[in-house]
Structures are given as C-alpha cells and as structure tokens.
C-alpha cells in the first residue's frame, strides 16, 4: 500500500478521476472515463515518473447497469499493482479506445473482452471473436446471458413436475440464488 | 441337385472348407501330374535352352519375395530398438517378444479400406506407390549376396543401381501431385528436392571406389575386398564412405533427414491421402530401401560377402552317408530320438518342477536347434555361398541397426539446412574425395607400378 504513489497519482490525474483512488493490500485502483483512456495511459506509459511499461491484464466487467474495462499495470517505481477501471460504458454501445497503440499484446485481450462482453475497442485492427464461432450473436459473460441451469431456475418456469428444476431449496446458497439472475454489484 | 444342395447346407463351416479344398487339391494334383507327363519333356528342353532367362525370372521372383520378410524384420527391429532406446518395452504381445507384430501390421494394411480421395487423379494415384516400390526393389537385382548369388551379373551394376533408384523421384512426385491435397503436394516436392539433391554426392562418393576397383561391376568390387578385413575399401576410402552413408540416409528419407514423413509438420507428407495397401507399399518401400542402402554400403566399403578373415573354400567334408547302407535309415530314425532324450534328461533330473513331458518338449526343441545348428555349420564349412550369405546378412543388418539407432537419437534437420548441406558441403567433399583418390592412385602407380590393378 504505497501512500506516496497515491499522492502522486492524485496530483497528476486528479481532474479526470471519477472517484477516489482506493488502496487495499497491494493494489491501487483508480477510475477514469472512456474519453480519458488515451491521455492517462500514454502518461502512465511514457512519463519517467511512472514508467508503467508492463500491462499485466486487460478485461471487461459487466456491473449490471454499466460496463467497465479494467486494466492492471506494473511498474518498478511502486510495489503496488495499479488497477485502472474505465467506468461508465453504456450497456447498449460500450466503446473504449484501444490500447494496441501502446501494447500490441493487448490485441487479443481486447478481442476476448469484445467476444465476451461486446465492448468495442476503437483502434484495434482485429476486433473479431476469438473464442466463440464467428457467427455467434450473444455475448456470453454479460449478466443477462443465462447458463442453462440458471434459466431452469427462472421464476417463469411451468407448474407441472417436469417443468420444474428440482434443486435443493433449503441450503443457504439456494437462498442467495433466489435473487434475480442479473445480479447487480452494490454501488461502491 | 436338391439332394446335393441340402446336404451341402447341413455341413458346418469346417466341413464346407474340407469338402471344397480337398477335391480341388486332388483335381489340381492330377492335372499337374498329367501336364508334367505330357508337357514335361518339351518344357524341360525349353527351360534348358533358355536357361539364362529362366534363371533371371527365378532370381527376380526370389528377390521380390525376399523383400517382404526383410521389410517385416526391419520394421520389427525399428519398433523394438527405438522402444528400448526410449526406455520403453515396445511390441510385447504378438508372438515371442512381439516379433510377429510386423506380420500383423502387414495384414492390417491389407484389410484397411483403400479409397481414392475425390478429385484425385486416380491413375497416377494408383501407380505412384508401385513406381516407388519398384524403383527400390529392382536395385536388388545387382547386389551380390554371396559368391554366385547375384540376381543378374551386370558389368555396369553400380550405374544400373543409381539409375533405377533415381526413378523413385518420379513416384514421389506422382504421389504428391495426384493426391489433390496441399500437404501432399508440399511433401512430395520436398521429398523430390531432397532426393535429387543427395543423389549427386551419393554417386560422386562411390567414384573413388570405382577408381580403386577399376570397374563398376559390384561382384568384382566385392571380390577385390577378399582376404583380411584390412582389405576392405573402408580403410582406403574413409571420406567416401562417410559421404556415401550420409547421402544414402537422405536418399532413404531416414532420420535426421526424414522431414517428408515428419508427422509433427506435414502429417505424412506425400503419403497423407494414402491408406490400406497403397500406404503399405510406401511403407515397405522405405524399409526395403533401408536394407538396400545398408547392403550397398556393405558391398562397396565393408567387403560384401567376405568374412573378415580369409577362409579356404571349399573345405570338403568326407561325409558319405550312402556308405552306411541300410544303417542310414536307422540313423535318421534314431538320432533325433536319442538327441531328444539326451538333452531332456538333465532338465528332468535337475529340477523337480519340470515334469517328464515338459522335459521331453524342452529336449525336442533343443535337439532341433542342435540339428539346425549342425546343418548350418556343415553348410557354412562346405559351401562358400552359405558362408558368404551369412556374413553379408550379418553386416547388412549391423548397418540397418545403425540406421535405427540414428532414428531413435537424432532430431530432424530443416529443409533449407538439408539442401545447404547437400549442395554446399557434401558435393564439394565428394569432389575432394575424387581428386584425392585419383592423386593417390597416380602416386602409388608411379612409385610402385604393380601395386594396384
């Protein structure tokens, strides 16, 4: 938990942050909007005070009402992982600038995020599906995409014995599962 | 008629077999006897008049038939040898130590569905394996297996050998092209390029031997190496032998030059679309090729059928079994029996776990082995061709083992490294070898005019 690093980030990027920088264990997390991705990432990559030359991970998240793109970076100026959450992507047309101009290796990670969530990375030269067949129409990791056994527990199931999904109902886990299928993150 | 069909239907399968085969055999035998009686005399005259042709036909048939057990044996050697080098067991179940496995493989290959892929040129597709197989096997005609045991005694035997083995390129290209498959095409072209590239060093490396022997006749080359093992051409042509060995490995598509059948790259190369007996032909052709190049190495550089020491042939054994008269009958009847009992008794006496009949079985087997050994020894001592054949086969199989050993040990060379090696290194070294040999011959002739033929 590097407090000085948080201070430096606040000083440099304070205006574009969409929330306070949070730190927990060895991770520092900041939230920005999709329009600020290019300047922020370029600064983090090129600026000698930060030198985040290593992109550890790039993924998409579906929080129920918005989509996010999450980047994890590593630099040797700080012992923390830096997590950048690009927040506020709409569910109908999520668009983020692509990071392939800095890291060519982000191409396939963005392809995967597109395949699983439908997030369009503008500037990625190869944004096609990577896991699913090319004519697939859904985005599997979205929260409104139900796995078959989830759908079997839908409240609209039939009345007859055959139309019910007979799963144990008395365990604590089942009680939690009785909430609607598209769960939402508590807003924090 | 219905009586016959009814009684036929009542027979079981063995019954049907017997009632078909036995009358057929009887008819065949009677017919054969009649044919011999009527036509025997003129036929024999015809054969005697055309003895060379008949001899050639018999020799060619024998050679063709011999390739199959040879291929089986080499396939088994390879499977078992590589397995033991890999610290595995290898074939284990079929036959003692898995030795019948290659026979089973041969049968399997015959039983597989033999299809032609759609779009393939079926005539070329069918004839490609035949061309490859024949190009390999026809070369066996000139290799001397023993004194007097050569299919056809050509004075240009070595030229014939290289000419015929070069025809395999045509077969490879046919296979690659006719398969209507990009992998096969690539594989076929790579194979053809490889074989053609290595033919030049192959042929050039034996020019030294030709100069030393003064002839291309393989029989004469072997006869020149008679005597002690120091007379073998390997000592006089070490560089040539090395180049020949490497080039021959590449010709036969063996590791480290086996990229045409590299299954980690191009599945099976030109043979991807082949199945059943057609693939069997390619398979056999490759293993017979291994035997052929081993045989040629032995012939050219390691003395052919000569033993490593000189042997005064023929040694006649003063055995005259006919002098025993009626006693011969008793000998033939009693010797095996006596041998069985003599060899069985120690086993029966030594261990109480071996019962009487088991000891007799062991004794019988040992007696057979003893008699076979005795006959072989008598053949070896008495007939020079038996000894020559034995030594030739031993030496050839040593080289076959060396090829198997290389396959188990070495990784593969890449196509461009392979071509580089052939054109930039081996060919130059072969030329160098020719010049050195020629220079040495001239020098020795100058210093000692009677030394060389």
């Amino acid at each position, binding site marked *: 938990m590097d407090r000085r690093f948080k201070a430096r980030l606040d000083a440099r990027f304070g205006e574009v942050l969409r929330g306070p920088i949070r730190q927990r264990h060895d991770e520092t997390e900041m939230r920005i909007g999709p329009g600020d991705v290019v300047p922020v990432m370029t600064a983090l990559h090129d600026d000698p005070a930060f030198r985040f030359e290593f992109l550890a991970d790039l993924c998409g998240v579906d929080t129920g009402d918005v989509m996010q793109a999450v980047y994890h970076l590593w630099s040797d100026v700080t012992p923390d992982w830096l997590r950048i959450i690009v927040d506020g992507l709409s569910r109908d047309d999520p668009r983020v600038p692509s990071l392939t101009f800095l890291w060519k290796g982000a191409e396939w990670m963005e392809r995967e995020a597109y395949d699983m969530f439908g997030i369009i990375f503008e500037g990625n030269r190869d944004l096609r599906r990577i896991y699913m067949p090319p004519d697939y129409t859904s985005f599997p*990791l979205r929260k409104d995409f139900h796995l078959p056994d989830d759908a079997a527990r839908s409240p609209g199931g039939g009345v007859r014995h055959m139309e019910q999904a007979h799963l144990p109902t008395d365990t604590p886990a089942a009680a939690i599962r009785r909430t609607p299928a598209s*769960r939402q993150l508590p807003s924090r | 008629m219905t009586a016959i069909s009814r009684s036929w239907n009542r027979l079981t399968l063995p019954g049907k077999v017997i009632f078909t085969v036995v009358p057929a055999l009887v008819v065949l035998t009677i017919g054969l006897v009649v044919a011999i009686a009527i036509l025997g005399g003129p036929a024999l005259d015809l054969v005697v008049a055309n003895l060379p042709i008949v001899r050639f036909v018999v020799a060619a048939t024998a050679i063709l038939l011999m390739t199959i057990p040879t291929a089986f044996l080499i396939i088994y050697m390879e499977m078992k040898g590589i397995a033991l080098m890999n610290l595995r067991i290898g074939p284990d179940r079929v036959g003692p130590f898995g030795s019948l496995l290659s026979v089973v493989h041969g049968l399997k290959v015959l039983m597989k569905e033999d299809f032609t892929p759609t779009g393939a040129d079926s005539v070329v597709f069918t004839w490609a394996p035949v061309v490859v197989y024949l190009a390999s096997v026809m070369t066996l005609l000139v290799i001397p297996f023993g004194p007097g045991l050569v299919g056809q005694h050509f004075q240009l035997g070595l030229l014939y050998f290289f000419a015929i083995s070069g025809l395999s390129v045509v077969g490879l290209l046919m296979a690659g092209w006719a398969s209507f498959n*990009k992998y096969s095409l690539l594989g076929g072209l790579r194979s053809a390029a490889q074989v053609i590239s290595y033919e030049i060093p192959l042929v050039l490396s034996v020019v030294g031997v030709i100069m030393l022997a003064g002839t291309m006749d393989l029989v004469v080359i072997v006869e020149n190496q008679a005597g002690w093992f120091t007379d073998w051409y390997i000592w006089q042509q070490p560089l040539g032998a090395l180049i020949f060995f490497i080039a021959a490995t590449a010709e036969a598509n063996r590791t480290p030059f086996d990229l045409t059948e590299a*299954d980690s790259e191009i599945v099976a190369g030109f043979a991807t679309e082949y199945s059943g007996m057609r693939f069997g032909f390619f398979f056999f052709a490759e293993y017979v090729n291994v035997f052929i190049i081993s045989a040629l190495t032995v012939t050219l550089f390691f003395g052919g059928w000569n033993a490593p020491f000189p042997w005064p042939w023929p040694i006649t054994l003063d055995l005259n079994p006919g002098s025993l008269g009626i006693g011969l009958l008793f000998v033939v009847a009693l010797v095996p029996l006596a041998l069985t009992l003599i060899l069985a008794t120690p086993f029966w006496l030594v261990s109480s776990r071996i019962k009487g009949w088991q000891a007799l079985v062991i004794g019988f087997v040992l007696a057979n082995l003893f008699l076979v050994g005795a006959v072989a020894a008598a053949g070896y001592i008495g007939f020079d061709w038996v000894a020559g054949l034995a030594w030739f086969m031993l030496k050839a199989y040593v080289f076959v083992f060396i090829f198997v050993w290389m396959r188990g040990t070495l*990784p*593969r*060379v890449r196509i461009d490294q392979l071509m580089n090696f052939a054109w930039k290194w081996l060919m130059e070294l072969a030329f160098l070898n020719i010049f050195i040999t020629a220079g040495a011959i001239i020098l020795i002739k100058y210093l000692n005019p009677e030394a060389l033929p």
Partner: protein
Amino acid sequence: MTTTRRPSADDPRVMLDQELGVFEPVPPYPPRTEREAEFYTLGDGEMFINMGPQHPSTHGVLRVVLKIDGENVVDLDPVLGYLHRGVEKLCENADYHQCISQVDPLEYVSSLFNEWGAVLSFEKLLDVQVPRRAEYIRVLSAELNRVASHALFMGWMALDLGGLTPILWSFIERDEIVEMLASLTGQRMLFNYFRIGGVNGDLNHDFMSRLGNWMSRATEQIEANTGLLNENEIFVRRMRGLGTIDTPTALRMCFTGPNLRATGVPFDIRRAHPYSVYPELDFDIPTRDEGDCLARYLLRVDEVKQSLRIIDQCLHQMPDGPIMAKLPRLLRPRPGRAYSAVEGPRGQYATYVMSDGTDQPYRMRIHDPSFIHLQSVGLLMEGNLIADTMAIMASLDPIMGGVDK
C-alpha cells in the same frame, strides 16, 4: 496431359451439394476487420495451409492458418476456441471453493499454479492469513509442479523437432513427480489441493520418501536428459537464432515468465511482487540475452535447477503448525476487488476477482500467460519456414487449456 475427372453431382461419393471446389481455409463471409482482410487476401504465389485442430503437433486443439509462399511462411492466424469451456462464467455460478476446481484444468500441466492464483485472490478478499506451514507446503508442491511442467516442455520441444527419445525420458521424470504429488494430493494431474486459507492435506511419509528418492537423483537425471540435446548440432542449429525477440518488443507483447527472461529482463513475480514465503527463500533469477528458441529452452533448464534449490530449502525450513486457517464454511467476503499474480512455469498467471457480498464471485477473470504468448507467434514467424512454426510455438510453451479457458 491427364485431365482430372471430377465426380459428377450424382456420384454418391460426393456428399456436397455444390460443385466440388478447392477447399480453402478462407472464411465464407467477407472480412470483418482490417487484419482479417489483410491476412485473407493472397499475394502472388501464396497459398493457405491449414494446420487444423487435429494435428500431431500443436499443443492441444489449435487451428493455425498459414499463408505460405513456397516454404516460407508469410503470415499466420491462430484460430482459438476449440477448448473454450466458459470457465469464467462457470465460476460466477459456483462457490469460492468450487472455483478452485473449476480453475484447475486451465493450464492442466501445472495445475497448482492455477489454483494458487485463484486462492491468493480469494484470500485477499477475505483478509485471510495463511499459516506458515501451509505456505511452505504450497511453495514445495508448486515448485515440484514447475519442474514437472518444464520436463514436459523439454520433451515436447524435442518431439516437435523430430527426436523421439527425449520426450520419453522426460516423462520418466514427470511421472515420478506426478506420483509424488498424487501421494500428497490424491490426484496425478488436476490436483485440487490448495484451499482458501491453506492446503488440503499435510505432508505424509509416502510423499517424503518419494521426494527424498527423487531429489537424490534429480540433478544427474536432468543432466542426462538434457545432455542428449544441448550439444546436439542438429538441435542447436535448428533453434539458434530462431524466433528472436528483443526486450522492447517482448514488453509490448506483454510477455512474462521464461519467455521474457530469455530476452534479458530479470522480471520474476516471485521477486518483483513477492507473495507467500518467497522473500525468505534464496534463489536466483536466471536470464539469457539472446531471446531465441535456444535461449528459452536453456533458460527453462536453468529454472529447473533453481526450483530444486527452492525445494531443498523448503524441506529444511519447513515449520510446524496448522495447514489451514480457520474459516467459516460459507464464505461471504465483503464487496470489493482483488488482483493477484503468481509466477507460473509459463509466465504470469493472474486472477482478478470481484465480490458482491454473496458466496459466489461476481466476476472471476483469469489471465493466462499462454494466451498472451500465442499472439506473438505471427510476429516471430517472419520469413521462417513451415517447420519453424512448430519449433517457435513449442519454445513459447503454450498450453491450450489456458489459452482457450
């Protein structure tokens, strides 16, 4: 000139409705992206070759479309998804404990690292302190798994180049290690051993005796196994200078692990971002400078030696104590996010977990090193031959279970 007789439409052997054409791996739809258009247009004299999902050499089910010009590979396009199981989605419907066994089959050759990555994230979310003995056992078993994975790599690398023997010798090593781990964890391959807060079972006598046996012979065995290849002219000639990558390109392609260290960067998560008890252990980070296939191969051999050092130290420094932290059965971490990375045998294996307060993770993102490295095969293949495709892919050591998740 023979004409090819094409079978007619009513020939029963032809099962196609349309006329028999030439089967190209070009997709039957117009190109959707720039790169697809660039790749699937043929230049002069080029053709496509499909190294299909069924192939004796790709490291799992992977389809690679090669655009070749004679023997030279001009471009290549890997097609993934044949082993996609939807692990991330399944983890969203599973408990935290069940996630560990869901995550096992990703890089199935080195399962313990998959579990470790997941378990570290969960422990961060739950603020669990793992007992020291459990940490030491984790390090010990994981380093054994690293040796087993590298043994597989060495054998497989040789097999892709044509040597039939080294893979079987390496598998003797791997078999011994896997039997050891079976006596410890109960399974030979997908171990399901790590738990949130510790490990499943303590060291037992069988494991210790097997480990002792193996350790006493390990160094000579590795020397013997690699001695067959390290000096072999054919092997070295095929690998030296092949698939060279320099450090800036490697960082741009997000390389990690031995592939990055072979370019000269001493980045190892065990030292750069230490987790577990690695700060207390003494080991070096081997690096090599050339960045070619041979460097990657030799580097992994060096790493095996370092792993042996670590295992030795673990055995000597093993503390007593419990092997599991005390945790409730129903785990409900408070809402939050956690990211953790471990140094697997292939590179950085990371997980990013989001919790919403229930007993199932809200989002479980798994970052797999093989996925990243496979991207760069096209980059490394410039101007090389088809035979080198296999060599380069093998030297990057991808495991398709991880690539396809």
